[in-house]
């Protein structure tokens, strides 16, 4: 299990941290959204994003990426999580949440996923936080107690419209900084995610060779 990789479909959850929800709230009723989301807003990380390697290669004109420190629930056969993984859900920064984010989130290598899974039963998720370091400096602390939909509620609300299969991964969301943005990385940066009880997850961002 040195290089963990998802066996099933990986889903991400938008706007699941209270800080980002609150920052968005005054604009949620405006066009084009016309109201806050009622159901969980999910997206898929396709298999081409799975990246258990030590680097993220910026390609095809991308110059910077959002760091998306998150935990993913790895589903068991009974509709409940079997284990939890530490992931970096990389994305191209995008201001608009109106249209699906395929070209922002589904680029090759945009799911850093090599840290081994940790058994679900051994964890108290709300007590955990993810420390994000950029080149050795702490840039963000993500508290799992700050979820808009905590795990049980998220599983229930997702389960209302789709079944998670054994091996599927449901990521709990990524938080923003006080300015509403996620911490960003550029070519040459090293990003380290640490959570007590998990192996740290380190990747270096590389620019494309000319």
């Amino acid at each position, binding site marked *: 299990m040195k290089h963990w990789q998802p066996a099933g479909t990986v889903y991400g959850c938008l706007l699941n941290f209270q800080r980002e929800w609150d920052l968005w709230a005054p604009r949620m009723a405006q066009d084009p959204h016309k109201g806050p989301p009622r159901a969980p807003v999910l997206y*898929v990380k396709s298999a081409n*994003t799975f990246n258990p390697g030590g680097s993220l290669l910026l390609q095809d004109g991308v110059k910077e990426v959002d760091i998306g420190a998150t935990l993913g629930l790895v589903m068991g056969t009974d509709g409940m999580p079997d284990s939890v993984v530490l992931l970096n859900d990389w994305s191209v920064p995008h201001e608009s949440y109106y249209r699906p984010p395929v070209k922002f989130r589904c680029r090759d290598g945009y799911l850093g996923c090599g840290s081994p899974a940790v058994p679900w039963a051994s964890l108290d998720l709300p007590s955990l936080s993810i420390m994000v370091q950029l080149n050795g400096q702490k840039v963000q602390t993500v508290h799992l107690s700050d979820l808009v939909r905590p795990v049980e509620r998220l599983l229930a609300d997702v389960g209302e419209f789709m079944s998670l299969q054994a091996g599927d991964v449901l990521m709990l969301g990524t938080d923003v900084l006080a300015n509403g943005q996620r911490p960003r990385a550029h070519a040459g940066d090293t990003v380290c995610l640490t959570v007590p009880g998990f192996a740290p997850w380190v990747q270096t961002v590389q620019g494309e060779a000319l």
Partner: protein
Amino acid sequence: MKHARIAWSGAIQLAIESDGQLLITQGPHQGLRVDFDEVVWLPPLVPVPQPRTVIALGLNYADHAKELAFKAPEEPLAFMKGEASLIGHQAFTKRPADVKYMHYECELAVVIGRTARRVKKADAYDFVGGYTVANDYAIRDYLENWYRPNLRVKNRDTCTPIGPWLVDAADVPNPMALKLQTTVNGQVTQSGNTADMVFDVPTLIEYFSSFMTLKPGDLILTGTPDGIVNVNPGDVVVTEIEGIGALINTLVKA
């Protein structure tokens, strides 16, 4: 050749269409012929080593874009689905009791045949393995303007019938000139032609492969033309594409 994946005699079988029957091509029953109505039809896709990427297009026919009161998009409007939403031919799709507007979408589905990255339009057909028919159901009651169309509309269990056949690309000389048609209980409700796609198959392959690697077995559902209507439990919906197949699905109460 038209390939099917079926459950028969207690196991999954691979078969091809042969004189109006299924000819089993592998395993202990190789060479045996079975009738269409003797089998359970599965999505005509062989398993892949990693989770299958399923891309779907919105507003990819000019007339459908107009019907939905949007102008045609300047770049493909794409969203992703999980493989778990796929079901086979002659299966049942669940319609929640409390919704007002659930509709089918007859779509040409492209199955990737070779690993594709930074493919040019002119070469794109070399990367197609074959074609099948998908019915990409939507429940408009659940539409929300956040990553729209949102997964609650588009990634529901049982809501993506696909099949019955995977038709080899070599047997589809011009995939951009195929008639599409949907009937509900025998009445034609949707008819169109793949010639009217806003972004044609080569353009889509060039677009997606410009930022992501497509693997053999990955799917692109290419959108649907004008003519969507509400369907109800008990309705039999047949989505058909000329030369590819007629995909039958029955709505049931959730």
